[in-house]
């Protein structure tokens, strides 16, 4: 589950990670109030206003309606309302969003941390994530902060370092020291960075995160180390341990059809193609999408109906798939192991009759327990449904429909 920057920072702060302070606002007026509070709390006189959307590249991104960037510095309290108005309610288009962009409902009003002082300001990159190959958490970091880390990896791979955390003993002090030294820090800033890394890793473990990306981590001109941005993803399977984090889910960031599917327990991903599919099992569902492509079509979705495929379930799945007007045909692909194919076939027939107005061809491939009975049931139903048993037959039927 992806979080907004302000939500990620709330979690970081609760674990003692030092952050760029800020307050979230949903109107120009409340942004102004937030700025006032922030001055009281931190003494800051300038403010950074940041659009809260689930996508990177906000700084360079443009709000379609106003031409404003997604991250803007307001040099004084009198500028805050205007800056907020330029961001809130508009659609922010960045390198990571679609061409339509994302509607900005909230803006984070944050303190200015790039103030001049005794030493030079520096930006670093720090992330914490799972290394799937070793099954261990790693801290990945670079002195090249504040920029696209994939570009750094491409151009100067020797400037990306990793520390692997031993699950038996956890993060060790020597590792935190090594990180601080590799980032070129000394004195007070070095100590602060060691501390920062420890708190950050504590937070990662403590909130059951699946990814932390802090870019940039800032060394201020007075040698503080703080998280200026936060990209935090939480492990959805662990949310039962953190009911307060579960409430942080922003459903407005999700595709409405995917959200609807999720609420009825269907695993669904919306795609751009013209052939819908409904499958039991995630692997077979991906393989079915690939078959659609090999047959000359383009998959319109991923949909795993799971272990039960009765009439009610099939109908729900059909309704979800048909919300996409680009769908020109539907392929149902069920391998009945424990599930009996004739029951699924009955489900398809009932759902078809209930819905009444399905005007795209449906190809049903049922294999496994009682596959022959299932085919007979569909063939004799008199419906406009093509029934096949072998996977290759399904592929051929799709090819015939899209040709």
């Amino acid at each position, binding site marked *: 589950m992806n979080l907004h920057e302000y939500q990620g920072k709330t979690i970081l702060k609760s674990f003692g990670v030092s952050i760029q302070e800020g307050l979230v606002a949903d109107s120009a007026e409340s942004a102004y109030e937030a700025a006032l509070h922030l001055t009281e709390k931190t003494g800051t006189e300038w403010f950074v206003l940041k659009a809260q959307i689930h996508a990177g590249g906000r700084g360079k991104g443009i709000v379609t309606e106003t031409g404003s960037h997604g991250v803007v510095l307001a040099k004084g309290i009198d500028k805050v309302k205007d800056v907020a108005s330029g961001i809130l309610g508009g659609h922010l288009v960045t390198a990571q969003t679609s061409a339509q962009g994302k509607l900005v409902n909230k803006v984070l009003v944050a303190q200015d941390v790039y103030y001049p002082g005794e030493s030079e300001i520096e930006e670093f990159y720090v992330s914490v994530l799972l290394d799937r*190959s070793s099954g261990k958490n790693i801290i990945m970091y670079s002195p090249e902060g504040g920029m696209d880390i994939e570009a750094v990896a491409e151009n100067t791979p020797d400037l990306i370092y990793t520390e692997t955390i031993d699950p038996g003993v956890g993060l060790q002090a020597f590792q935190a020291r090594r990180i601080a030294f590799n980032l070129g820090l000394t004195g007070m800033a070095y100590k602060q960075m060691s501390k920062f890394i420890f708190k950050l890793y504590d937070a990662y473990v403590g909130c059951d995160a699946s990814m932390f990306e802090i870019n940039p981590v800032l060394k201020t001109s007075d040698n503080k180390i703080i998280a200026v941005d936060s990209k935090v993803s939480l492990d959805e399977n662990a949310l039962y341990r953190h009911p307060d984090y579960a409430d942080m889910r922003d459903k407005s960031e999700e595709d409405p059809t995917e959200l609807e599917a999720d609420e009825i327990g269907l695993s669904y991903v919306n795609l751009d193609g013209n052939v819908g599919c409904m499958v039991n099992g*995630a692997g077979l569902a991906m393989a079915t999408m690939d078959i659609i492509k090999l047959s000359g079509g383009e998959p319109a979705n991923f949909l795993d109906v799971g272990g039960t495929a009765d009439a009610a379930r099939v109908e729900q799945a059909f309704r979800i798939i048909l919300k996409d007007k680009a769908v020109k045909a539907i392929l149902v692909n069920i391998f009945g192991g424990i599930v009996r194919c004739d029951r699924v076939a009955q489900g398809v027939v009932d759902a078809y009759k209930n819905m009444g107005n399905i005007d795209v061809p449906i190809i049903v491939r049922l294999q496994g327990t009682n596959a022959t009975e299932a085919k007979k049931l569909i063939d004799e139903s008199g419906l406009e449904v093509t029934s096949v048993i072998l996977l290759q037959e399904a592929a051929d039927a799709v090819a015939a429909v899209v040709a």
Partner: protein
Amino acid sequence: MSVLVNKDSKIIVQGFTGSEGTFHAGQMIDYGTNVVGGVTPGKGGQTHLGKPVFNTVQDAVKETGADVSILFVPPAFAADAILEAADGGIKVIICITEGIPVADMVGVKHYIDQRDCTLIGPNCPGVMTAGEAKVGIMPGFIFKPGTVGIISKSGTLTYEAVDQCTKAGLGQTTAIGIGGDPIIGTTTLDAVKLLMADDDTKGIVMIGEIGGDLEVNAARWIKEHGTKPVVGFIAGVTAPKGRTMGHAGAIVSGEDETAEAKKRVMRECGIHVVDSPAHIGSKMAELIG
């Protein structure tokens, strides 16, 4: 011969008396699998499906000599149940449970790696040796004792491969569902090594999907050490980058995790990669039929 489980395996079921455990243990027993008992804390001393129930894995091992355990335990308790099995002396631990927190599995993998036991899964359909032992949720009737070993991250896609090999007249030795989570016990490579060393297995079907590097690691080993033909399939050529496709581990995070990239490496390593999952059985028949 076969790998991991056979007719002599002594199998216990953790989460025996729950609805999933009851249903699938019943199916396993019907197939003729040697289920010797089960574990449900607090229900020790009872009898379920005609088999004894124990409070702890330790008790079950002591009383029955069990060496294999299958877990139908809810995700919040599954990591603990795996550790209990390992601590209790079980040699092959098969975890069906889907949805275990990743942080739990980081600890489990670390623990298991230091002990003399094998973990299969989690989030897998189990292991099945045709005609001998069904230790999982795979449908028994599609199997036929034969010569193909099958490795897969996915449930129904495994059934597809099994069914095609049966219809091609080849049959199976053992099908290993390794699971679709980001952290799993037995990797594709571990499973390949087992099947390469099994005399009855004449060919191997290796089914993977987007995400991670398991198939690539196995392919590189096969290039150097492989002694049998391997048919490969990778699901998810059409999957968009950065989206999780059903399985928690099925997500493309980098260029080398795409289906195309994996297939390219597998082909370079001499694996017979099919683009359509409909051709797995026929390709294998062409090679060893």
